[in-house]
C-alpha cells in the first residue's frame, strides 16, 4: 500500500471516529439541557395546577384528557411517595404509535386529604431535535471527511512529489553507468536531506564500483604477468634437446601447476566480474544458433568418444543479455556434457519455451546435486578440473535471474536453464 493512501485512510478513519464521538457528545449535552428545561416546565405546571385547585371540595380530574391526573392516596402512601420524574411511552391516537413522554409524579395535601399528582408532557420535541442533530452532524461529518480526504490527496501528492521523483531516479540508477543522478529540488528540509544523502551515496557507490573494477583488472594483470613469464620460460626450457627425462617431467609438472593457477585466476576473475555486474550491456541474443555452433565445435570430441548427440531444436530462445556471457554459459554446459559423458554415451540437448535442457549419460551423483554449483565442488576425478565451471554457470544465471536446475538419477545427469 502506498504511503499516501495509507496515511489518507488512517486520517480519514480517525476523523470519522472523532466526528461520530463528538456528534454523540453534542447530542447527549443537548438532550440533558432539554430534559432539564422540560423538568422545569413540569414543575411550573405543578405549581399552576396546585394554584388552580378549588378551595372547597375535592380536586377532580377533568373529563377531557388532560396533562395531569390527581388521585387520592392514603397517608402511608403519601409518606412513602417521593417526588420524581419518569420516562414513559404513551400510545398517541392521532399518530397511532407509541411516543416518548416524560412525567412528574408528585404529591400534595389538600384540605386534610392526600393526593398523588401525575403530570406528563411529550418528549417529541426532544426526539425531533435529536433527529435534526444527528442528521446535520452526519452531513457535516461526511463533508469534513470528504474535504479532509481531498485536501490530503492533493496536498500530500504535491508535498511528496519530490520524494517520488527521487525514488524514480534511484530506480533507474546504475552503478556501472555514468549518467548523473538528477535529484529534484525541494523546499522541504527532509527531502533536501534525502536528496543530499542519496546523491552522496550514489557517488560513493559509483566510485567504489569503479575502484573495485579497476582493482579486479589490475589484480589480474599483476598475477598474469609473472605467470606469463614463468610459463614462457618453461616452454623455452623444454626446447633443449639435451634435456634429461627426469628434468623434463619436473618441468611438465611445473607447467601444469602454473597453467592451473592461471586458469584459476581467469575463472575467479570472471566470476568476480559477473557478480559485480561488470557486464553491463544487454542485447538480444539468439541462443539456438549459438548452441548448435558450440555443439559443432565439440564434434571432434564426439567422434573420439563415439558419443551419440541428439539435438531437439523445438522453439527459439531469445534472451536479453550480454552475448559474451551467454556464450560462456552455453559453452560451459556443453563442454561439461562432452567431458563428463563416458565413451559411447548419449547427450541430449533440448531447446524449448525459454528453456535449455542438457542430459547426458553419467554415473549417478550421490547426495545434493545443488552443491555442484558451489565453487570448488568437484564430482569428477579429473585431477586438473578446477570445479569452477558450474559455479560460473550459476553466477551468470544469478546475474540475469535465470533458474538453473540440476538432477542426477539412473545413470543420467541433467541440467536445465530456465531463461
Amino acid at each position, binding site marked *: 500500500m502506498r504511503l499516501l493512501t495509507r496515511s489518507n485512510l488512517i486520517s480519514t478513519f480517525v476523523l470519522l471516529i472523532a466526528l461520530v464521538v463528538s456528534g454523540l457528545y453534542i447530542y447527549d449535552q443537548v438532550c440533558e439541557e432539554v430534559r432539564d428545561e422540560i423538568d422545569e416546565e413540569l414543575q411550573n405546571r405543578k405549581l399552576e395546577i396546585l394554584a388552580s385547585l378549588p378551595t372547597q371540595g375535592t380536586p377532580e380530574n377533568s373529563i377531557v384528557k388532560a396533562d395531569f391526573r390527581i388521585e387520592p392516596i392514603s397517608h402511608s402512601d403519601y409518606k412513602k411517595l417521593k417526588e420524581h420524574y419518569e420516562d414513559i411511552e404513551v400510545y398517541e391516537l392521532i399518530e397511532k404509535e407509541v411516543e416518548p413522554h416524560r412525567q412528574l409524579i408528585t404529591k400534595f395535601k389538600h384540605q386534610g386529604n392526600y393526593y398523588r399528582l401525575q403530570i406528563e408532557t411529550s418528549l417529541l420535541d426532544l426526539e425531533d431535535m435529536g433527529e435534526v442533530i444527528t442528521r446535520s452532524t452526519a452531513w457535516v461529518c461526511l463533508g469534513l471527511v470528504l474535504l479532509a480526504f481531498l485536501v490530503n490527496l492533493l496536498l500530500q501528492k504535491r508535498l511528496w512529489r519530490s520524494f517520488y521523483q527521487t525514488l524514480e531516479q534511484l530506480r533507474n540508477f546504475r552503478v556501472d553507468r555514468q549518467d548523473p543522478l538528477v535529484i529534484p529540488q525541494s523546499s522541504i528540509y527532509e527531502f533536501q536531506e534525502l536528496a543530499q544523502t542519496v546523491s552522496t551515496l550514489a557517488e560513493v557507490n559509483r566510485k567504489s564500483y569503479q575502484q573495485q573494477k579497476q582493482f579486479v*583488472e589490475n589484480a589480474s594483470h599483476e598475477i*598474469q604477468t609473472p605467470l606469463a613469464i614463468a610459463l*614462457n620460460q618453461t616452454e623455452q626450457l*623444454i626446447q633443449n634437446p639435451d634435456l634429461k627425462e627426469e628434468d623434463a617431467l619436473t618441468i611438465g609438472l611445473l*607447467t601444469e601447476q602454473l597453467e592451473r593457477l592461471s586458469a584459476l585466476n581467469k575463472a575467479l576473475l570472471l566470476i568476480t566480474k559477473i557478480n559485480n555486474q561488470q557486464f553491463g550491456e544487454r542485447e538480444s541474443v539468439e541462443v539456438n544458433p549459438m548452441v548448435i555452433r558450440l555443439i559443432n565445435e565439440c564434434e*571432434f570430441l564426439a567422434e573420439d568418444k563415439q558419443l551419440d548427440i541428439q539435438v531437439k531444436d523445438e522453439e527459439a530462445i531469445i534472451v536479453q543479455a550480454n552475448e559474451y556471457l551467454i556464450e560462456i554459459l552455453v559453452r560451459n554446459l556443453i563442454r561439461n556434457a562432452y567431458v563428463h559423458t563416458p565413451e559411447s554415451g548419449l547427450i541430449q540437448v533440448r531447446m524449448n519455451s525459454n528453456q535449455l535442457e542438457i542430459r547426458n549419460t553419467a554415473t549417478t551423483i550421490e547426495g545434493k546435486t545443488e552443491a555442484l554449483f558451489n565453487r570448488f565442488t568437484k564430482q569428477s576425478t579429473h585431477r586438473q578440473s*578446477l570445479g569452477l565451471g558450474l559455479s560460473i554457470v550459476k553466477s551468470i544465471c544469478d546475474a540475469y535471474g535465470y533458474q538453473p536446475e540440476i538432477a542426477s538419477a539412473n545413470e543420467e545427469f541433467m541440467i536445465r536453464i530456465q531463461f
Partner: protein
Amino acid sequence: MKLLLIEDEPGLYQTISQFLITEGHVCELATTYEEAEEKIGVYAYDCVLIDIMLPGGNGLDLLKELKRTHKTTGAIVISAKDSLDDKLKGLDLGADDYLPKPFHLSELNARLRSVLRRLKFEGSDEMQVGSLTIDTTARTVFYEGKEVILNRKEFDLLLFFVTNQNRVIKKSALAEHVWGDNIDQADSYDFIYSQIKNLRKRFSQMGYELNIQTVYGIGYKFSPQ
C-alpha cells in the same frame, strides 16, 4: 620478417624476443610508450606486437597511430587484461589479432604467422613442408599430388604443428589451440592424444609418415621429413 615488440616486462620481452629471433625474425624492442611511438614513427615493420598497459601510455593509442600511418603493418595486441572491452576495442582499431596473457610461445608464433600470411608478407598461400604442399587459404594438403582429406580441426592441428616445426609444443598449448579459449576445462587434454592419432592415420593411409613425436609425455614435436 621485421618485428617490433612493445612490452615493458623484462621477464617477458627477453623470452619473447629471443624466441622470435630463433624463429628467424628481426625483432626490435620498445619498453616505453615514448620509445614505441618514436620507433613506429621512424621505421617500418611487418608486424608489431603491442602490450596494452605501458609506462607512459596506453598501447591502444599506439595501435591507432600505427594504423593511421602504416596501414599495411600487422598488429597483434597482447594484454594481461583479459577483458572483452580491450579485445573489442583493439580489433575495432584495426588489430589483426588479440592474445591474452599468459600465452604459449607456440600460440604466439601461430598467430604471428597467420597474420603475416594474411598480409602476404610470406608470399603465396602455398607452403612446402617436406614432401607436403599446404594451401592455407584453400585449407588443403597435398602429398605427391594427391589431396589428404582433413576436417577443420585436423587441418588446424596440422597447421599449428607446421608453424611450430622442430619445437616441442606443450599439450596444453595444443589443447587451447584446438579448444579455443578454455576456462576450467584443463581436464580435457586426453583428447589431444586421439586427435594426433587420427591425424597420423589420415597421412599413413596416403602412405606418408607424419613425424610427430611425444616428448616425455609433456608435449609433441613435429619434424618434417
